């Protein structure tokens, strides 16, 4: 701590110099990787949407500019819901809904893909806080359960299939956990109903 007065300026300048060099290195690095990262991000996002859109072919998806539906809305969850539209050759072929189910341990974020025929093309969990080992079977990596929605529509009747088997519906529950699957089933069902109303409205 014995540097003289000149040290104040000198030190400051040196620090500035270090900062400049550091900034230059990083900015250079950024230049080199920028595009690849952007491509990665794009690919990851696309993969997610592709997984919920299943076999539905599409060429454009407005994932940067979804329609945001602020609560209160008739979609599941209290948070703003997002609706993305997929087009193929200019025609809208499907919608992807980002909604929330009320799980056991908190909200479960879901992507629900629904095609123009009001058939579920796929469902994926984006994030959740369910109990590991109990509620976590909704993850695609852990079980196939989430694919049991694929290809289902509202059905002819009043929608009684949209419940767990033990409640008289068509979906399995997990051992020791009914709340989580029930919540997901209900959320997908509500989304489907909403999609139907959207189709009907315009």
């Amino acid at each position, binding site marked *: *701590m014995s*540097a003289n007065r000149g*040290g*104040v300026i000198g*030190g*400051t*300048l*040196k*620090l*500035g*110099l*270090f*900062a*400049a060099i*550091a*900034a*230059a290195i*990083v*900015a*250079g690095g*950024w*230049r080199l990787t920028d595009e690849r990262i952007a491509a990665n991000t794009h690919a990851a996002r696309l993969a997610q949407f592709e997984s919920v859109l299943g076999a539905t072919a599409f060429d454009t998806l407005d994932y940067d500019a979804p329609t945001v539906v602020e609560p209160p809305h008739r979609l599941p969850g209290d948070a703003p819901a997002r609706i993305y539209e997929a087009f193929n050759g200019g025609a809208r072929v499907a919608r992807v809904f980002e909604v929330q189910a009320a799980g056991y341990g908190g909200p479960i974020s879901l992507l629900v893909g629904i095609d123009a025929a009001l058939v579920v093309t796929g469902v994926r969990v984006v994030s959740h806080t369910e109990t590991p080992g109990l509620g976590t079977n909704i993850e695609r990596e852990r079980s196939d359960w989430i694919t049991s929605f694929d290809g289902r529509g509202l059905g002819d009747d009043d929608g009684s299939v949209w419940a767990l088997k033990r409640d008289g519906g068509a979906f399995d529950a997990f051992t020791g956990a009914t709340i989580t699957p029930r919540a997901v089933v209900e959320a997908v069902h509500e989304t489907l109903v909403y999609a139907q109303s959207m189709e009907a409205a315009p």
Partner: protein
Amino acid sequence: MDIVSAIAVLAGIALVAGLALTLAARTLQRDADDVVERINAELPQTQCAQCGFPGCRPYAEAIAQGDVDINRCPPGGDATIAALARLLDRDIIALDASLPPPAPPGVAIIDEERCIGCARCLPACPVDAIVGAHQFMHTVVEDLCTGCELCIAPCPVDCLEMVATDDNAERAA
């Protein structure tokens, strides 16, 4: 272009920060005396210099400076290390292996028959516990002696000897 703005932003922040810090460092000098006192209070005050410093306080200063470990005082032994560790929130470590192990507390006594009154032991004693004049028999004031053994070596006729102190329990009572 973004490289330039990156450099500008970061260098700008760095300049401000650097200026503030150097100035602060200059104005806010620390005052370490308090620490030295509290460290010194934990040392046994035997003043034996085994720690490599000419007494307890110099050792305390060195600790406060961060120059040495806290495990260099044999008379204090593990208890002192523990006390210092607690004071400074450091790990308790074993006594430095290069130092002699702690000896039982003792005091020096002078064999009065043999003492030739050379007075060489007088300046050696860090606490002036030896009384006597040149050419006269010397004696150690037992209550003042810290048992540092510094007086043993200077005596030309080996008339000083360490004896273990009697039960400190009784002395305390």
